[in-house]
């Protein structure tokens, strides 16, 4: 109870201060921050780096908050940041779990801070219901991109045969969406491609390695392709194939676009991966948040497609890897929706 009262007092003080110093000095005092699960995986490390680059470009202080997979810690850190900055803060957050997004938005709104969320939020929480503090939600179409990468796998298999599929943690939203997309693409072949087995490996490459070994015993040469819901598990499966001298002869696909997977695509050992753009989600998420906070755009007047949108996932295969490597990955921080591929759809 004491903590609640203290928090309420701090939040109201923060709110008073932020209204007091509103327009004129607002931008000068702004802090930019990124919050995500951990710095120990390439996706989030690049996400944070994208945010840092934007912060440098506008010369504002930048902070990284890490949840370590703990929602309580994530929320406590964000609360502390909001009160420390008196609400003068833009946070680009990848919430640890969907329900966390609602709490973060409430806290930000009460203190006058600005928030952009990534990937996880409840379906019925929308930025336009929390103007102007909840600036936007960015995500990638799990179903659509998974369908595309599965089609790339089916192409590499010559259009028919059995595949084995390795999924992520069964309850994770991206794991569910990616599995659905894979199943839809397989269904579209009208029975030419068959899913021999589906096993979750919890995003873990060692687990994927062991499951792939068991599959080699169970199905042997009937396995014509391997689908993995992320690149780590794809690499785990690929290494199990390598152990049997089968690397490169059975096509494997993954999702995420990690450097290991891209190199495997180059070497012809993987048939494809989907490259997200964490530099863009990190940098552009903060840029949009910053623009809304400083009044460069009137976010409340923007259409819904500019408030909840998908980024671009690029399907990288041996056919376009060279082009992908040499592409111009830079983007204009002020061209907020250039890489948007449409408003988020709910299944």
């Amino acid at each position, binding site marked *: 109870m004491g903590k609640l009262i203290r928090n309420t007092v701090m939040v109201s003080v923060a709110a008073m201060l932020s209204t007091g110093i509103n327009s004129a000095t607002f931008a000068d005092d702004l802090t930019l921050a990124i919050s995500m699960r951990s710095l*120990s995986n390439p996706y989030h490390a690049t996400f944070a780096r994208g945010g840092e680059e934007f912060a440098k470009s506008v010369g504002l202080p930048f902070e990284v908050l890490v949840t370590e997979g703990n929602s309580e810690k994530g929320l406590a850190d964000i609360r502390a940041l909001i009160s420390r900055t008196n609400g003068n803060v833009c946070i680009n957050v990848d919430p640890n779990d969907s329900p966390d997004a609602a709490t973060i938005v409430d806290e930000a709104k009460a203190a006058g801070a600005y928030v952009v969320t990534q990937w996880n939020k409840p379906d019925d929480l929308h930025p336009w219901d929390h103007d102007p503090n909840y600036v936007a939600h960015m995500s990638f179409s799990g179903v659509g991109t998974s369908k595309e990468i599965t089609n790339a796998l089916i192409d590499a298999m010559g259009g028919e045969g059995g595949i084995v599929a390795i999924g992520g943690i069964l309850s994770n939203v991206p794991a569910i969406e990616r599995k659905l997309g894979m199943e839809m693409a397989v269904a579209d072949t009208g029975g030419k491609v068959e899913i021999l087995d*589906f096993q979750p490996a919890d995003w873990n490459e060692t687990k994927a390695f062991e499951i792939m*070994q068991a599959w080699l015993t169970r199905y042997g040469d009937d396995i014509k392709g391997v689908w993995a819901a992320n690149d780590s598990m794809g690499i785990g499966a690929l290494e199990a194939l390598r152990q049997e001298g089968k690397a490169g002869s059975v096509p494997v696909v993954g999702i995420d676009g*990690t450097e290991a997977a891209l190199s495997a695509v180059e070497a012809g050992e993987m048939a494809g991966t989907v490259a997200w753009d964490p530099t863009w989600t990190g940098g552009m998420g903060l840029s949009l948040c910053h623009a809304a906070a400083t009044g460069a755009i009137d976010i409340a007047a923007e259409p819904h497609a500019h408030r909840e949108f998908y980024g671009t996932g690029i399907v990288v295969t041996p056919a376009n890897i060279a082009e992908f490597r040499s592409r111009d990955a830079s983007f204009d921080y002020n061209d907020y929706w250039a890489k948007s591929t449409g408003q988020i759809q709910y299944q």
Partner: protein
Amino acid sequence: MASINLRALAPIGVFFLLCFVIAVFSPNFLSVSNAIRILNASAIPVVLVMGATFVILMGSIDLSVEGIVALCAVVTASLVLNDTTGANLGLWAVPFAVLAGGLIGAVNGATHVYLKVPSFMVTLGIGFVCLGIATAALGGFPVRISDRGFRALTLGRSLGLPNGIWVAAASVFVALIIQERTRLGRYVYAIGTDEITARQSGVPVERTRVLVFVLAGLFSGLAGAMAAAQLGQGHALIASGRLFTTITAVVVGGTALSGGVGSVLNSVVGVLIVVVLTNGMVLMGVPPFVQQGVQGFLIIVAVSLALDRRQLEVVK
């Protein structure tokens, strides 16, 4: 040790029963190629339990396994031909990884013994420190290995078997010698059975404890090098899930968490049970959401069969 009773053979019984049941449902299970796959998947866990068994026999616990393996995998990957550093030590990176593991084990042991911090907390903390170092050193990115010669440590084959299996077999041999033929091995049992009596009989308890943690670190370091060779990279998350397998395998094999009872050979059987279980459930087509439940249930059954209750006066 003269009184060999049925309990001591229980883990082996559980293992054969498991194999029999799986083979009934899936005849492929008994193929030579699957046996090799199972041994191959067991290689890294076997190396890990060689260290963990001594620690548990002593009545302590080592929770730093994942941290040490990850950090040593990163050390190994950075010392062989890779995409991040300029080093190219080839297989000579392995002794460095093993030494690094031993060093961390020494920190575990010294902190535990001389600061009198329970091994549970020390190793948990040191494990996190190692993961932190691995994360900070790499900034979240993996070090990818391009040295094919080094990767032969697990990918290559000798006499028809993957080299990883030979490395694991050598580790078992070394651990067995330490357990049966050295003072250190006998001291471990003495301390695990009754530390006060052991101390009064002149067993150098402090030194033994530190040495056992060093030993566990050495094996974890070797496992780290093997993990790097197997997956072709080193990164902070490479060992996730290893701790659970390690401790489960030791206990399923019949080594008591309270100390004093068990052996490294038991732990080898324990690893085989855990690995065969994972392999078998995929072979039998057990639905994924049932697998974890079955695994948990069978582990409890295996432990309750394997434990020799007459030798256990206290269960914590």
